[in-house]
């Protein structure tokens, strides 16, 4: 008897936890008052694409990214940024009068789980995809979207292969592009003649930037003074940076290039202070967010420069409105991932309007229309103005260099 009661209890707990997961999946459907009208026809539209005319139909946009696990901070930001954009668009009447339904799935920054999330979204009837957030999962999902010919726009998948097929586009810079641009910037502004690099050799993002940086450095008026093996770290070795920092210090580098994420950067900065080593610090867009590290001693990051597509304290009206909304809802300053995601939804809107797609079209037909429409639009968003896209999926936008002054990021 006791056992039975226990079984029942466990079963209850399990159902409850599953239900909780479903809720956390984050479904932002049309505003509440429309819900009852839109939901039923939309569900019918899943299996039978044609009959659901524009009357009650919706565009089903899926999102994939890590909302749990080590990279959760990026996935959460993307989910939140995209949700704000979806709410705004729906409140303003939708895309060509059609509401968007947005569902976000967690992939824990794992390629396999990302493909699972993709399949879940396909079952739900997704027509367009925003994601995946991180590079490796994005490459894996890219294979599937290519097979299915489903339009994919990644807010932050920076690896070259993320957009290797013609159905995939990205909002952010690619890794080589960042490496190239930062080498150019350092060279042209004569920031240093001796440069050391620390990078994460186990992360394609970091390694990709590093390789492009190294290649471009040969054309520039500075020299990389550390060898690859002295500056590398990897996923299982990212707490102690004493050796890498010593190597840079002993090589007499005046500038330390840090193409990796801010969590590790905060450790590197601390280690540099420990060793009384004060070069110019230069990072890439993964550095964005270092000031949001709770309890972080911002004096460590004073004068740190990094490339970023988005500055939260900008005077731009669009940025201000987004930042205010984000802060109201989530009580934190949005990072570039949130901004990229927010722009992604608006890019989808612009391209969908350009292409004149309707909700009764299937994913593949929408994708074909979107491929041409993407190269035809010029987009003004919060991560840049006048952005246009190549057929290869790469955006054309100007990089922005941000420097931390007095605990705040200032655009240079």
């Amino acid at each position, binding site marked *: 008897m006791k056992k039975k009661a226990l079984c029942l209890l466990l079963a209850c707990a399990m159902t409850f936890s599953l239900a909780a997961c479903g809720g956390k999946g984050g479904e932002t459907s049309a505003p509440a008052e429309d819900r009852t009208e839109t939901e039923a026809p939309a569900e019918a539209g899943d299996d039978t694409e044609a009959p659901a005319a524009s009357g009650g139909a919706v565009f089903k946009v899926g999102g994939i990214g890590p909302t*749990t696990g080590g990279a959760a901070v990026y996935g959460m930001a993307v989910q939140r940024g995209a949700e704000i954009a979806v709410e705004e668009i729906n409140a303003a009447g939708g895309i060509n009068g059609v509401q968007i339904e947005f569902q976000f799935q967690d992939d824990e920054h794992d390629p396999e789980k990302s493909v699972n999330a993709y399949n879940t979204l396909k079952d739900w009837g997704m027509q367009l995809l925003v994601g995946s957030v991180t590079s490796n999962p994005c490459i894996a999902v890219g294979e599937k979207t290519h097979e299915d010919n489903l339009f994919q726009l990644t807010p932050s998948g920076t690896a070259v292969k993320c957009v290797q097929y013609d159905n995939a586009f990205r909002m952010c810079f690619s890794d080589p592009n960042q490496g190239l641009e930062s080498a150019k910037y350092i060279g042209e502004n004569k920031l240093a003649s001796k440069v050391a690099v620390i990078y994460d050799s186990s992360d394609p993002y970091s390694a990709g930037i590093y390789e492009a940086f190294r290649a471009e450095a040969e054309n520039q008026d500075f020299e990389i003074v550390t060898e690859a093996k002295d500056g590398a770290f*990897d996923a299982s070795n990212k707490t102690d940076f004493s*050796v890498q920092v010593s190597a840079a210090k002993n090589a007499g580098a005046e500038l330390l290039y840090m193409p990796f994420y801010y969590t590790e950067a905060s450790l590197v900065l601390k280690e540099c202070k420990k060793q009384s080593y004060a070069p110019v610090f230069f990072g890439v867009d993964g550095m964005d967010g270092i000031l949001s590290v*709770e*309890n972080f001693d911002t004096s460590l990051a004073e004068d740190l420069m990094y490339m970023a597509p988005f500055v939260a304290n900008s005077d731009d009206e669009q940025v201000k409105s987004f930042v205010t909304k984000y802060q109201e809802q989530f009580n934190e300053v949005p990072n570039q991932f949130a901004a990229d995601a927010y722009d992604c939804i608006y890019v989808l809107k612009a391209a969908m309007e350009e292409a004149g797609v309707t909700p009764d079209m299937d994913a593949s037909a929408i994708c074909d229309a979107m491929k041409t429409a993407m190269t035809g639009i010029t987009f003004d968003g919060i991560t840049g103005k006048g952005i246009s896209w190549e057929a290869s999926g790469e955006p054309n936008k100007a990089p922005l260099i941000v420097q931390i002054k007095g605990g705040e990021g200032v655009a240079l």
Partner: protein
Amino acid sequence: MLEFISYLVNGISLGSVYAIIALGYTMVYGIAKMLNFAHGDVIMVGGFVVFSTMSGMGLPPVISVLISIVVCTALGMLIERIAYKPLRKASKLAVLITAIGVSYFLQNVALLIYGSNTKSFTSVVSIDPISLADGAVIISGETIVTIIACIVIMAGLTSFIKYSKSGRAMLAVSEDSGAAQLMGVNVNATIALTFAIGSGLAAVAGVLLCSSYPALTPYTGAMPGIKAFVAAVFGGIGSIPGAFVGGILLGVIEILGKAYISAQLADAIVFAVLVIVLLVKPTGLLGKQIQEKV
């Protein structure tokens, strides 16, 4: 030469943290014959408790560390009572899986409470760094405290086990729990005590780890936990001096390997050394070969 000394000091410091964590693994393995993979996450909890009480509530560092030790000790005993004790008679594999489950549980609870954003940990150590040979060798306050803490813990634990009644009971249970029970040792209480001590040490390790490397996330404890497990196996799992030696050696090999061979191959070097040691001495450096009597 100066460079070498500086690397060596860094290695010993990192190794001391591994050693303190490894003590927790080794004691639990020695006595309960199980691998407590949630140990690394108790470290993380220790870090977060200090973070909350010190940076959040503004308590002095010493008080926060004490609170953290108390919380982790209680947590360790709670985990043992809820997750491991009911499985005492179950297969070893079941307990192992449970431990992994507890580990994920702790990580996800921390994720729920604190979110995924990195927290910067304020060091609890306020000793000025020592600068030797005109700044060529700088030994930070954290390094000094970590090494001293490790030695004190090691000495304290050894004498506790040797001279106190409950310590000797631990030794008895680790050698033969059935016989110990027959001799009137309360096996369950002894195992609970082991978890309490191991988890208390985890809190100390967490504080020291985060003071030296101040990025705190719900996953902070996972990797050092695994490294420390390796250290425990390296030194001979179940042996307390073994955990100490294994931890220090692992830290030193890791740092020196990074510095003189290749930073990319640091882990490969560490594990190559581990494989060689285990090939030559399957029980680890100081592990004892216990004859199974039939």
